[in-house]
């Protein structure tokens, strides 16, 4: 295996925006195999926007995005899913009138995933016992936090080559936040690379391998998480210390 192969996601100098409004400026980042990479930054700094571009919901204005070595700008979200990307967006995007179980099963919609469907389902259930309890309930009836778990479960069903998550701990109770972060770490250790967007920088720095810091659409800091934890700027601006 050469080192190029190791890079799962490579974002090269992208500009992003909505209609006429630019929100991300010349951002480059990469995620390698087995890595858990954090992406943090203030509200509205453009984190979600970058994730949207990676999963094909919006097209870059400038720059390239490479996924497993292939240029992907211009692909649709479903094409990205076929290529092995799983996105847990903010707002969850569940199927409210389908049962929780059907929601999760739809995660293995793609033909190559169907063989392992049952096995993966059990894995998800063991990760989130609560979700199993509500397996036959319509997803729309779940509480906000319960829905978040279903969304993560569904994404795991995709057996992704890269998992990107937008604030998965949003709205989860402290107990679950810990569980989810641990689960994400486990997932990464299993060999699934993860790009994680979170507000809770403490958690991110604690669990992730490397972290990028975004401010007003520009990368301002990057490096191994353990190093950043002590960085004065982080301590001041994000940990409020």
């Amino acid at each position, binding site marked *: 295996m050469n080192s190029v192969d190791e890079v799962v996601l490579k974002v090269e100098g992208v500009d992003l925006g909505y209609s006429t409004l630019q929100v991300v400026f010349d951002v480059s980042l990469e995620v390698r195999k087995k890595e858990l990479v954090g992406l943090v930054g203030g*509200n509205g700094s453009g984190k979600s926007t970058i994730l949207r571009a990676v999963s094909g919901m919006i097209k870059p204005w400038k720059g390239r995005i490479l996924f497993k070595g292939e240029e992907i700008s211009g692909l649709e979200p479903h094409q990205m899913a076929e290529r092995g990307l799983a996105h847990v967006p903010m707002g969850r995007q569940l199927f409210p009138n389908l049962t929780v179980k059907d929601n999760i099963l739809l995660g293995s919609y793609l033909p190559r995933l169907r063989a392992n469907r049952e096995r993966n389902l059990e894995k998800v259930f063991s990760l989130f016992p609560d979700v199993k309890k509500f397996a036959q309930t319509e997803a729309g009836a779940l*509480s906000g*936090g*319960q829905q978040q778990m279903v969304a993560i479960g569904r994404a795991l069903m995709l057996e992704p080559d890269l998992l990107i998550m937008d604030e998965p701990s949003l*709205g989860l109770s402290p107990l679950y936040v*810990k569980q989810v972060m641990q689960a994400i770490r486990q997932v990464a250790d299993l060999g699934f690379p993860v790009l994680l967007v979170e*507000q809770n920088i403490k958690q991110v720095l604690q669990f992730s391998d490397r972290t990028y810091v975004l401010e007003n659409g520009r990368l301002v800091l990057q490096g191994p998480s353990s190093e950043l934890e002590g960085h004065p700027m982080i301590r001041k601006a994000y940990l*409020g210390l």
Partner: protein
Amino acid sequence: MQIVLKADSIKVQYGGLIAVNDVSLSLEKGQVLGLIGPNGAGKSTLFNAITGFAPVRSGNVTFLGQDVTNVPPYVRTRSGMGRTFQTERPYEDLTVLENVLVAAFLKNPKRKDAEEVAMSALEKVGLQDRANQLSSDLNLARLRRLELAKALALEPKVLFLDEIMAGLNPPALKEMIEFLRTLTATGMSIVMVEHIMEAIIQLADHVIVLASGNKIAEGSASDVINDERVIEAYLGTD
């Protein structure tokens, strides 16, 4: 102290699921009541039952001395309840200012007065720069703040906040806590659902812990976070 809100043995049921079971609470003027509990515990449901958005099976809600159990939500709003929604509900085709204006019109029938109230609510949540932007163009964090501005513009006596701090980074969180303090200082009471314990600890005068629809503990924040059951069901051990 004056009791502004009282709920007695509230029960809410969805089909076979008892979402809130026999929960009572009361709130004094200028105080903050924290509502915590695991996901799906019934916090939002209790909240909805009190503000009139969820059907109450049994029990009573008394607001400012009036029984409002069977009163439609908009009447409760008129008598002084203001709330946010956990999943934000902007009026998508209106601008940010107009969104708040709708609420401000409640107490200020004149456009000019209403606009002033709306603008000051936007300033309080730091959205004044976005006043003329379409609300559908806001990101999630700003929509949250818009929710809060809408509730503030009602000039309520009791403010109900459902997870408005979720997704805030630490500095913003700090600001928000400060801001809510200034509100209670003016005599406003607050009921808040929150998973961010830091906020609960700093703000709540009294905390109620729900799990599976039942009240499992209550008391001051420090009592509650040291409670065995609460740690087991909600906080987890480090």
